[in-house]
């Protein structure tokens, strides 16, 4: 069974990325209500049109269970499809195809997909030390009986930086490494951000030398190759094609999808240089009946420069081991021959938690609609969008086309 373009992305909303210290604090429920309202206005739909819901399952601030029911009630919705998605940075990609599949099955006609990314007002009765300790572990579990609590934390293996760095080191050992080419990914995306006033690093271009001279966090990753966590949040609406045609903008059809989870820690991968996007992208292209060469743009999840490099190779945009040459040989900016992360990527747009991965999807929609302003691509009918969660643990791919 395939997604046959029966569902389209018709509305989007995204908070401008901001530093946590200065961003408004809002309950997740309030962020969802606000983002839903903005996405409905963008689509030209009303709350009554929404009959499906996809929200974050992990780290939901006001509920640890029954999250969709809590959210639907708060919004004033009754839905025929309710889903929590707990796939980290590929949650947005995962929501899109789940929504499209539910619509194709006839379960619903319009699905709100939403990921809050601002901090909630602090619980006045919470123990600040416990809150700080939980924040330190990030995506790791410190729970009794959690394998990573027992077999990672005692050695200092925690968080994403060192995991991605170790993948990069293994890649360098196998295929070689060009630090300047890797820095070039961050530089091209920063260049794109100069045409996006919403980006966190708008007005702050960088050079390859800036990247190579920036602080080494975990070899070989410099701090300018590592995404900055920010406050934000985003939502989009997927609708049945007949409803989509009544909306305000050019519908963006979901034509292909794939998803692959291979491990939590890449230490246990059979080969950590072959990433899950390989299978996910292969399925997505097959389903859409398209090839990497058919894509007018690539919006590739970019928590780190190495994530982009491996995704380009494993999704089939270049051969394995040739990623360094590929990024050297192409202009990756919106002006160039291989437009990549035209909003600046999360490296320059900012990463609002799991909503960061929604920035890639929303940029693809914006470009396909033709409303990207200064950075608008001349050819903008097809897009490859990827998501990545954990440490290359779980990845998803979408093929989007303009109606």
């Amino acid at each position, binding site marked *: 069974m395939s997604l046959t373009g029966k569902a389209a992305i018709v509305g989007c909303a995204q908070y401008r990325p901001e530093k946590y210290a200065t961003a408004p604090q809002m309950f997740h429920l309030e962020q969802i209500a606000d983002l839903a309202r903005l996405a409905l206005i963008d689509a030209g739909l009303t709350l009554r049109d929404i009959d499906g819901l996809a929200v974050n399952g992990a780290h939901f601030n006001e509920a640890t269970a029954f999250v969709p029911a809590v959210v639907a009630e708060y919004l004033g919705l009754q839905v025929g499809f309710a889903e929590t998605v707990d796939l980290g940075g590929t949650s947005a990609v995962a929501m899109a195809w789940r929504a499209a599949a539910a619509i194709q099955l006839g379960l619903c006609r319009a699905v709100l997909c939403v990921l809050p990314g601002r901090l909630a007002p602090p619980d006045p009765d919470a123990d600040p030390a416990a809150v700080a300790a939980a924040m330190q572990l990030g995506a790791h579990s410190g729970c009794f009986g959690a394998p990573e609590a*027992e077999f990672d934390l005692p*050695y200092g293996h*925690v968080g994403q930086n060192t995991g991605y760095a170790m993948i990069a*080191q293994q890649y360098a*050992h196998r295929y070689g490494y060009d630090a300047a080419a890797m820095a070039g990914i961050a530089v091209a995306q920063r260049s794109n951000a100069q045409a996006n006033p919403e980006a966190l690093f708008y007005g702050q271009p960088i050079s390859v030398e800036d990247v190579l001279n920036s602080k*080494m966090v975990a070899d070989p990753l410099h701090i300018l190759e590592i995404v900055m966590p920010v406050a934000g949040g985003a939502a989009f609406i997927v609708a049945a094609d007949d409803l989509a045609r009544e909306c305000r903008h050019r519908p963006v059809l979901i034509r292909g999808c794939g998803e692959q989870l291979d491990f939590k820690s890449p230490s246990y991968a059979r080969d950590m240089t072959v990433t899950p996007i390989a299978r996910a992208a292969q399925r997505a292209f097959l389903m859409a009946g398209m090839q990497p060469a058919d894509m007018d743009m690539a919006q590739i999840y970019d928590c780190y420069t190495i994530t982009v490099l491996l995704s380009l190779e494993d999704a089939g945009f270049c051969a394995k081991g040739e990623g360094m040459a590929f990024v050297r040989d192409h202009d990756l900016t919106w002006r160039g021959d291989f437009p990549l992360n035209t909003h600046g990527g999360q490296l320059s747009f900012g990463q609002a938690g799991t909503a960061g991965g929604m920035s890639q999807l929303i940029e693809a929609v914006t470009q396909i609609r033709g409303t990207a302003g200064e950075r608008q691509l001349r050819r903008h009918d097809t897009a490859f969008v990827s998501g990545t969660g954990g440490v290359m643990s779980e990845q998803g791919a979408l093929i989007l086309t303009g109606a």
Partner: protein
Amino acid sequence: MNALIPRPTDITRPFWEGLRERRIMIPRCQACGGWVFYPRRHCTHCAAQDLAWTEVSGRATLCTFTIARVPTLPGFAGAEPQNLAVVTFNEGFNMNTALTGVAPDAMRIGMSLRPVFDVLDAAGHTRLLFTAD
């Protein structure tokens, strides 16, 4: 440096108790011969629930590494840089660990390693580090 003390479970306790005795005990499947790390009660190769704790030498090679120049947890502040490593045992399974007694610029993927039993506290909690062989 104040590493987090591992909290053994009923499933994993023989591994940690083994380290206290300077022995490396790993579950091995009696049905298919596969090694299972981290410890579980089922074989991740064939799903049999027929594992036996089996001693290994700890000889290994460096699979990959990074030099963490920013402390990864507050307990590691003052111990930077951290030589974080993934090692591949001669038996074929991987383990997250750290290297000790190896200069950061001397770490090479593929280098031969031997185990170091690192006692963490007066109670004798022990973790498994590695060094150049």
